[in-house]
């Protein structure tokens, strides 16, 4: 079974530039999560999708962050414009049943904003 695939693995951009991350969840997993993880911290939930519907985006900084999950499969997370404080690892995860089953995580995208 293929795992959660994220790309790119690494991204370095200058502040004020846009950046996008892509995630392909495990086939058949309806729930998709985007997390942000700062160094030495646990993952922080940004947004959770149930199929194509964003059911929890309370932690997403909506002034600069946006996300979409077209057709309830792949998802993209965008930051525009990026700030220095956005440097972190962005993790995508998927699960079969929201909150009631294990979440499978991708390897993440390490973003560095300079």
């Amino acid at each position: 079974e293929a795992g959660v695939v994220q790309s790119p693995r690494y991204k370095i951009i200058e502040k004020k530039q846009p950046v996008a991350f892509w995630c392909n969840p495990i086939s058949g997993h309806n729930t998709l999560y985007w997390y942000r993880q700062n160094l030495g911290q646990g993952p922080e939930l940004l947004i959770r999708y149930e199929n194509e519907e964003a059911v929890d985006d309370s932690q997403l900084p909506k002034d600069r962050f946006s996300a979409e999950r077209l057709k309830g499969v792949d998802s993209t997370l965008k930051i525009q414009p990026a700030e220095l404080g956005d440097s972190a690892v962005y993790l995508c995860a998927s699960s079969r049943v929201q909150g009631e089953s294990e979440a499978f995580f991708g390897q993440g995208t390490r973003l560095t904003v300079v």
Partner: protein
Amino acid sequence: SQQGEEDPQALSIQEGENATMNCSYKTSINNLQWYRQNSGRGLVHLILIRSNEREKHSGRLRVTLDTSKKSSSLLITASRAADTASYFCATAFGGFKTIFGAGTRLFVKA
């Protein structure tokens, strides 16, 4: 914050010893999960324990849950160097929101 909090923040033991990590949380939960993260494999799910369960085992892992104290513990028996990683508890509550703690960094010396 309704985040789980792990204790200790860091733990260093000798190979073969047991490692115990604790997690405390603030609100009623649906379930609690433990994850491991190392540089090689990213975040990996270890075990899920539901709110009506008190103990679960998986190989060398033993998890307990005390809902009256809002706490959980993860015991790794006969630790190995390969167990060196960060361990996170994640609590799922209300609307199935899952919140991670800051983690315990375990170092197992060979």
